[in-house]
C-alpha cells in the first residue's frame, strides 16, 4: 500500500461533499415525510409510503435512468430548472448529490419515523395545555425527543449516499473531478491494468467511513432510548 494519489483524494473529497450535501438537503424533507407518515392518516398514504421505498427495491440503474429522464437537460423538470433557475443536474456533482439523496431517502426516513412513533403523544397534549401552539409543540417536544432518531437517520442516509453507485453512474456518468465518487473510481480502477492496489486503498477507505457511520448510528440509537426514559 503506497500513498493516496491526488486523483484518489479528489474522488474521496467529492464523495464526502456529495454525501454531506445530499444528507443535509434531504433531512428537512425526511423529517416532514416521517412526521406525516407517523402522525397523519390521509388518502394515498400507502402509495406515498411505497413510492418512498421504491429506490430501495428498484434496480439502481432504473432509478438512475428515471432521474436522467426527469432531471436530464431534456427532462421535464431538468429543462425547466435549467431555463428558469439555472440549476443543472446532468453530468454535474449536483446530479450525483441528487441521485444519492434519492437513493438514501428511505434509509433516512425510517429511523426518524420510528422515533416519532415512539414519542408519547400525551406529552404533546401536556404541552398544548401549557399554552404551546401546534408548531411550538413540534419544535419544543416532538423534534427534541426525536432528535436521536433524526441523527441516526442522517448517519444511515450518509452511509448509503457515500456508497451509492448504480443510480449515480447512470444519471451523471463517471467524470473524474466532477462526478467520479469513490465507488465509480473503484469501478474504473478495477477495469484498468495495475489498478488493483489503488482500488484496494479506496475499498479500505470506504470500509473505514462505513464503519464509522454505523458505530455513530448505534450510539445515537442508544442515546434515543436514554432520552425517552428521562435520565
Amino acid at each position: 500500500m503506497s500513498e493516496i494519489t491526488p486523483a484518489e483524494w479528489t474522488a474521496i473529497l467529492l464523495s464526502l461533499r456529495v454525501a454531506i450535501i445530499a444528507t443535509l438537503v434531504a433531512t428537512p424533507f425526511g423529517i416532514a415525510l416521517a412526521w406525516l407518515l407517523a402522525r397523519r392518516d390521509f388518502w394515498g398514504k400507502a402509495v406515498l409510503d411505497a413510492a418512498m421505498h421504491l429506490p430501495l427495491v428498484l434496480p439502481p440503474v432504473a432509478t438512475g435512468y428515471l432521474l436522467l429522464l426527469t432531471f436530464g437537460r431534456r427532462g421535464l423538470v431538468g429543462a425547466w430548472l435549467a431555463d428558469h433557475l439555472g440549476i443543472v443536474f446532468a453530468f454535474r456533482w449536483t446530479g450525483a448529490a441528487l441521485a444519492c439523496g434519492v437513493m438514501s431517502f428511505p434509509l433516512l426516513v425510517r429511523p426518524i419515523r420510528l422515533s416519532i412513533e415512539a414519542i408519547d403523544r400525551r406529552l404533546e397534549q401536556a404541552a398544548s395545555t401549557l399554552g404551546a401552539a401546534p408548531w411550538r409543540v413540534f419544535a419544543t417536544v416532538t423534534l427534541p425527543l426525536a432528535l436521536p432518531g433524526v441523527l441516526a437517520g442522517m448517519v444511515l442516509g450518509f452511509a448509503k449516499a457515500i456508497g451509492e453507485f448504480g443510480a449515480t453512474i447512470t444519471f451523471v456518468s463517471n467524470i473524474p473531478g466532477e462526478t467520479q465518487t469513490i465507488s465509480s473510481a473503484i469501478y474504473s480502477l478495477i477495469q484498468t491494468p495495475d489498478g488493483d492496489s489503488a482500488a484496494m486503498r479506496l475499498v479500505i477507505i470506504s470500509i473505514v467511513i462505513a464503519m464509522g457511520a454505523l458505530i455513530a448510528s448505534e450510539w445515537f440509537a442508544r442515546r434515543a432510548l436514554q432520552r425517552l426514559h428521562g435520565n
Partner: protein
Amino acid sequence: MLRVDITKQLGEFSLEASFESQGRVTGLFGASGAGKTSLINIIAGLLRPDRGTIALEGDVLDDTSTHIHVPPHRRRIGYVFQDARLFPHLDVRQNLDYGRRMNRLVEDPAQHKRITDLLDIGPLLDRRPGRLSGGERQRVALGRALLSKPRLLLLDEPLGALDDARKMEILPYLVRLRDEGIPMVYVSHDAAELRQLATQIVMLQRGRVTALGGVKVLS
C-alpha cells in the same frame, strides 16, 4: 364560573353531562369508567364535544351550534395528569418554566419562588424527571401547571398513581393550593380525598350526572 353542557359519543360509551360550578374546588366524583377523564379532556379542549357548550367565566370555549372550538393552547386551563407527564428531555427548572415561555409571560421570580416553596421543589430544580420519585414528579407537575398562570386548574386523580404514604405527602400541598384561591376541577374516585378538598361535588355515573351539590352528597 364553569358551565358545562355537552354530549360525546366514545365508541359504545356515551357521555352526557350538564352542570354549573361556582365552587372553588369542584370535585368530579365517580367510579372508573364513569367518564370523568373524558369530561375534563373536553373542558381542557383535548377532546371536542359532539354537541353542546363549555364556558368559563362567561368566555365561550366550545359551542357546537356556532362552531366555536378554542384549541387547548389558547384556553389558559392548566392540567395536572395522573401520570405527571413531565418532559423527559428537560430538567425540572425547564419543565416549570415551559408554560411561561409558551404563553410569552414575563419572568416572575416572586411567583416562581412562592410556588417552588409552596410545593417544596426548590432542591429538585436541576434534576431530570427520570431521577424523581412519583410524589416529587407529581409536585413538579402541579408547579408546572400553576406557573403557566391558568384561569382554571384541572387535576385528574393526581394521587391515583401513588401509594398511601405518598398520598399523605401530597395532600397537604393540595389543601394549600385550594386556599390559594385558584379555581380547580378535581377528579377522583376517592370520596375521602374529595371531602378534604372539594367545595362542590359533581357525581358522575356511566356518563351521566347523577348528583350535584355540597360535599354531603358523597355520603
